[in-house]
């Protein structure tokens, strides 16, 4: 099943709370902030569902030299972007896992292993996973992350995976769920709802 999915990278390091993957440019499917992905764990028996919260491109001495130089040609820039083995590293927060056809909204029992393939979650699975909003606490409680922006991006992505007619209802429901979780932090809730609003107001 997984062979048909778009591969976006391979795990380079991981823990129960998340994993870091790397890929080489130019992969056709660049991961995006707030996108859901999955990485195989437990020898394929489960897939950890990750939410991408950071994307970083490493540099090196040569790239710095070219970046600061005059007279860089279009071919040299294309060479750097397409050929040089500078990995793009992306970090994902574990927000649940899947065993068989069932999604679970807690941390997985085991993390994926090094070099486990990471796939973008297809739209049907995004809808399936976000049918329940039990993963919201894992995002809101994650420390050291831009968790509000991440949550807004994840919910907007989940809305886009749905038919247009269902998007508004999904976002309103998600807004209500956030309100219940953030009753003691109204400032934060207000920011989050603001971030969801453009999607809500769209006809």
């Amino acid at each position: 099943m997984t062979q048909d999915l778009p591969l976006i990278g391979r795990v380079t390091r991981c823990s129960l709370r998340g994993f870091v993957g790397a890929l080489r440019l130019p992969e056709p499917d660049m991961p995006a902030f707030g996108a859901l992905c999955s990485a195989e764990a437990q020898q394929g028996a489960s897939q950890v569902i990750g939410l991408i919260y950071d994307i970083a491109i490493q540099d090196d001495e040569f790239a710095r030299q070219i970046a600061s130089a005059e007279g860089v040609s279009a071919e040299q820039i294309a060479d750097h972007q397409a050929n040089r083995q500078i990995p793009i590293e992306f970090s994902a927060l574990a927000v649940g896992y899947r065993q068989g056809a069932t999604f679970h909204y807690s941390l997985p029992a085991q993390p994926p292993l090094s070099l486990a393939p990471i796939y973008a979650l297809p739209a049907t699975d995004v809808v399936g996973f976000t049918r329940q909003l039990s993963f919201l606490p894992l995002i809101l409680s994650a420390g050291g992350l831009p968790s509000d922006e991440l949550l807004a991006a994840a919910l907007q992505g989940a809305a886009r995976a749905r038919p247009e007619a269902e998007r508004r209802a999904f976002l309103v429901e998600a807004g209500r769920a956030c309100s219940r979780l953030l009753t003691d932090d109204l400032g934060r809730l207000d920011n989050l709802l603001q971030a969801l609003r453009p999607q809500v107001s769209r006809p």
Partner: protein
Amino acid sequence: MLAGKLPQLEAALAGLETLDPQSLAARIAKAGDRWPGARPTAEPANSAFDPPPLPPSYHLLAADGSQIHPDRHAGALFYLINIGSLHLVAGSGAAPQTHTRPALFHEPADLYDEFGGLIPNELIDGRRDAAELGELARLAQATAGEPSLALLDNGLILWLVLQVRDQPKRAVDEILRRYLGHLRELRDLGAAVAGVIDRPRHANVASLAHLGELPLESVDDASLKASPYLGLTDRALFDRQLAHGQRSAVFIHGSPVNRDFDKAGHQVHFYYLKTAGDTVLRVEIPVWVANNPRLLGLTQAAILADSAATDGFPYALARAHELAVIGQAERTQLESMLADALLRHGLPARPSTKAAAKRWLTGRRRHRV
């Protein structure tokens, strides 16, 4: 102190132009084959040439190689040559094509010479040099009929031939034959070829300038060795002579090995070129590039343009080097793959006792007495 002699050296270089060419030729002949000085061409020795305009589109091919020499103490006996190359179409805006071609040699015929001795490292380096040029000839197949420049990260002379006294002659001849064959292929395909030397330490033009100051009758080993310019390099000289983008006159390489190249129609010439960051490169070219104004101009203008962003050294060569280089991690991985393969065939691959002992000892704390 030495730098103070540069104006005198410049004057000596200019003085070459006042000499009758016949008289200079007589001094060069008297200096003998072993004299390492540059030989002049029709271009005045102290001239400087601006770069010609570049064609709107041209091919830039670059190759570089690296190697793992055989290690008698390792688990498996082999050597590896890895060639990295890049084919960039300047003016296209497209990413260049890159290639990495490793070749592993482990058969007895590869590893031992005709007398049963382990192949010397110099021969492996010579095979690498020939493989670099072979890769350029391979890439040039696709560019025939279009302006193309093939670059090597080294001089064009095959230094292995100079060491021939210490090497099995048949193997050296075979490498030289292959090397000259690749030069012929490149010439027949219409590509320009240039070997680029960064931070050259040569003083061949300085030697020529000194020779020009000696009266014919006093040209001998002692006077040639007593040059007042000893320690000064051509690079220092042309740093003063050239403005950014300019090249020096073309000279003929004075190496005795150049006779073999001359016989095959590839006599090596060279010039100095000032690129970005006041870098002075030595560019070595075969005679058929030196005598073809279009190819000669392409070497100057394309090397200059390709070096703009990389502090004066060609970008394409820096990338070819990056593609060719074999890191310690890759070397270790290769050795363990080879040991695995040997084990699968029932051949235990163990490092020598000496290598193993070294490994044990490096981890050990020294006991103080």
